[in-house]
């Protein structure tokens, strides 16, 4: 089984080819605001450096959020078009669950700073059980969870140091993520959409 893994939801992008539980090609790079320039190029490059053609992969796993709206859309557009044209299964991956799968701790709280004292977060245990599903909420609500699980490993895709809210930066364990997600059902390319967890501002104001 050969999987193309794509995450462009944060300022760092991770694009990799995983074959039989091994990462055989990978580009992990911090490219804030330049996803639009490099994401397709990196997909091309992870294939090219190991002499693979786009058609040689079996499926695509793509992070569909939460995270940067624009970032998420870049990776998803690539996955949707790729999956549609070459008839490859697409499996969507949660950025938060991907982080939780990259930690060995008993309880993991993956968080993403959504600015203005808001966060995306979830609570997972070491067996990949969801204790609290991914959501968008205030700092106060997140703090309740952090206080509830004192031993939790609080992780993020970038170092977070906002007073009471601190998280260590975690690198993706791509093999483990792919291993857990391979049992998920693929989504029809037309139906693959971002999981924003947050309405556009114009709709918030209209609520």
């Amino acid at each position, binding site marked *: 089984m050969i999987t193309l893994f794509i995450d462009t939801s944060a300022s760092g992008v991770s694009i990799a080819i995983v074959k039989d539980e091994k990462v055989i090609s990978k580009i992990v790079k911090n490219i804030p605001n330049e996803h639009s320039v490099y994401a397709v*190029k990196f997909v091309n490059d992870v294939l090219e450096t190991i002499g693979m053609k786009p058609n040689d992969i079996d499926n695509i796993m793509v992070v569909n959020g939460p995270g940067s709206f624009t970032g998420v859309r870049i990776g998803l557009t690539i996955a949707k*078009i790729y999956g549609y044209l070459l008839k490859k299964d697409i499996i969507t991956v949660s950025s938060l669950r991907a982080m939780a799968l990259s930690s060995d701790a008993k309880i993991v709280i993956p968080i993403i700073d959504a600015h203005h004292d808001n966060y995306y977060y979830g609570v997972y245990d070491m067996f990949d059980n969801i204790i609290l599903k991914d959501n968008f909420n205030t700092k106060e609500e997140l703090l309740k969870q952090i206080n509830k699980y004192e031993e939790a490993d609080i992780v993020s895709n970038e170092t977070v140091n906002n007073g009471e809210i601190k998280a260590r930066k975690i690198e993706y364990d791509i093999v483990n993520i792919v291993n857990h997600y391979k049992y998920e059902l693929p989504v029809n390319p037309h139906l693959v959409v971002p999981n924003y967890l947050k309405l556009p501002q114009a709709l918030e104001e209209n609520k």
Partner: protein
Amino acid sequence: MKDVVCLAIETSCDETSMSIIKNGSEEIATVVFTQIDIHKKFGGVVPEIASRSHIESITIVLDELFEKSKMTIDDIDIIGVTYGPGLIGSLLIGLQAAKTIAMITGKPLIPVHHIAGHIYANNLENRLQFPLIALVVSGGHTELIYMKEDYSFERIGGTLDDAVGEAYDKVAKILGLDYPGGPLVDALSLKGEDTYDLPYPLDDKSYNFSFSGIKSAVVNIVHNEKQRKKEIRVEDMCTSFQNRVVEVITKKTMRALKEYKVKNLIIAGGVAANNGLRNRFAILCKEEKINLSIPKIKYCTDNAAMIGAAAYYAYKKGIVADLELNAMATDTLYKY
């Protein structure tokens, strides 16, 4: 010469559109998914909502295009895409789609400037005759361009503030008309009389335009009348506004034709659908023996067919992008 079949993608604003165009002139199939109803309730295009809609429809539009054209990706020779200008979040979806197709197929990726697309919309009906002057008027653009030959653009003037279509939509909003209000102002102007004392927008010797002054004049009159508890005669205001705008645009365009000794005029962009503008140009061009070309309404608004037409001529000029092509919210046409 071998036929060149272009798959074209346009997502610069609130329309997800794809098209297959042969040799820059023959439209094989076009699909347009318009978001107009989504944005209507906000009185204008909301960029984040536009981006969200583009990604939801991107593969559906492509699938429909293949179905409609009875073609597959293997029949395509080049991929043309609007890289700018436009709403960055919207442009990005079409751009990533085009780059992904180019990566998978190894076919040339042709970056097309949105304005070049509007101009080449005319080529889908009649082959462009050079030299020409192109007047591009839309919700985002007001530009006068001189073209000596294919894919050579010299900007001789443009708006200093609002685009003409934007001014129409804003005036419509002030008058309490629905969005998009430009076509309504145009329609109502046919029923009214030119009774309001509005200024001529930037009636000077340059080829530039400015529509913020006349828009402010409309705002002031509406407010004053309201304070005096008097009704605004909406139809008359539309007529007065349209007359001033059409007068200045046609006057400057006709002067440019004379100065550049050009006998071909093409009008492009969404406001090319404006009846006031079409009728006035028809009369003036007949008088001055100018060969006037205005595309059908469906080619006036944003569509990928025009991008496919322009992409062919860009390709013939050797304009090809690599996979690092980026979207540009603003960009000049004139570097190529």
